[in-house]
């Protein structure tokens, strides 16, 4: 990709002006208790909400429950919303729901969040990952952004995401899957911008390590690809 280093983090901003006006209207009607207005917001954001919950939890049933609860909670509390990004506000409720779900799971003997967290945290920043990238690639023109991913590649990426520590998982989902700006992510995660920045970088590095452990699926990156620019 020659000369495209400034590739913006955001894909098209989901709201052009008309949409934004409609959203604001739907929000203020929802704040007066109008459920059908709120359901316009549900229709608009349920994909993002469920997507976040699913990528966070890795379990469709749990993700659906968390998503539904989040919408109920959002409707109950929507009068408290005033401000910039409804999406960020909503996704914060979803992500809180995910953490609550883990907390509840931890109380059960069958599943251990500690084990989950440990698998995400281990080996973070322990090695210099760039050494692995010097190997020649098997498929020089392989470009995941253009090619549709094969099912086993998708499964491998999803599994790798679930191995990240939850805090890193959250920011990487929001930035790279949902295409949100750092500022919006900071609102969802409730952390300073600098923390978002470092978490995203570490999450990407860690993900790369995990994916490179399967070279048959993920050919190492091309050096000449970068030099060309």
């Amino acid at each position, binding site marked *: *990709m020659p000369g495209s*280093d*400034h*590739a*913006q*983090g955001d*894909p098209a901003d989901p709201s052009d002006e008309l949409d934004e006006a409609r959203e604001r209207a739907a929000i203020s009607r929802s704040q007066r208790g109008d*459920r059908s207005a709120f*359901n316009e917001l*549900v229709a608009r954001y349920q*994909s993002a*909400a*469920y*997507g976040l919950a*699913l990528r966070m939890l890795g379990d*469709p049933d749990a993700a*659906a429950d968390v*998503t*539904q609860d989040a919408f109920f909670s959002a409707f*109950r*509390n929507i*009068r*408290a*919303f005033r*401000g910039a990004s409804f999406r960020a*506000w909503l996704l*914060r*409720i979803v992500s809180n729901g995910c953490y609550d779900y883990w907390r509840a799971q931890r109380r059960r003997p069958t599943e251990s969040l500690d084990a989950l967290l440990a698998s995400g945290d281990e080996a973070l*920043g322990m090695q210099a*990952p*760039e050494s692995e*990238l*010097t190997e020649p690639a098997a498929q020089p023109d392989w*470009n*995941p*952004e253009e*090619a549709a*991913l094969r099912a086993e590649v998708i499964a491998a*990426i*999803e599994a790798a995401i679930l191995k990240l520590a939850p805090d890193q998982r959250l920011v990487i989902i929001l*930035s*790279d*899957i949902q295409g949100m*700006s*750092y500022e919006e992510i900071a*609102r969802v995660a*409730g952390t300073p911008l600098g923390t978002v*920045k*470092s978490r*995203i*970088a*570490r999450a*990407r*590095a860690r*993900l*790369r390590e995990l*994916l490179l452990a399967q070279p048959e699926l993920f050919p190492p*990156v091309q*050096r000449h690809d*970068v030099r060309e620019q």
Partner: protein
Amino acid sequence: MGNAVNHSDWESQRERLSAYLDGELSPAEQAELAAHLRDCEQCQRELAALRQTRALLRALPTPALPRDFSLPEQPVIAARRRAAPVWARPAQAIGTIAAMIGLAFLIATALPNLPHGMAGSATSASGGSAAYNSTLPGTASATTPASPVTATPGGEQSADAATPHATASNTIFSNEKTPTSVTAGSNTTEPAGGTYGPEHSASGAHSAPTQPFPVAPVAGFTLLFGGAAAVAAGSLARRRSRDDEPDEPDDEQESW
């Protein structure tokens, strides 16, 4: 800022590259790093790796929704919960009074050797409770007041007013799935006034003291537990409706 060229802190250099990829650096930092990248192979490799990782994530398909998450248009749950406070507060208040009266009955009758003055007030109280007991189907014929019904209209009234509330709220409590709790709570106060009249004649007719029935303890227990149940049901319903209200100080709403 010679920082961008300093690889000794690789972690923060990678952080900068990652933000650069997302266009999240300041214009000055962005330009500086672009200049550095022209010469630094290590940073070029890292940037390409970061970009490829991001591309993989972006290429993930959007998961299909398992269902529509729209809220039901008829707020069934909300209506039921909003209804609770209508009767809950009176039920609590009256239940408390009933329970206290019941407790007073029990204390009065549990002490066998009372001083003269207190014994008198105890019997008049039991007379009042006889009137109350006679309205109950099972105990009507067996009621044998020790003295004619004369005194304590205030206590009697509140007892009569209290128990229908207690039972009303009990019914609501057990049938809480039906959405009619409001009407149930307010309607059942009427029989209290309706049954008040017949009590006097009923208790007056059955005034032959054959065998002492433990009227006061029974009434005391009834009032005590009925009142307690009303208080419990009332406070439960109110707590429920409180849960349903938006709790403002939730931390997730503060910064918006």
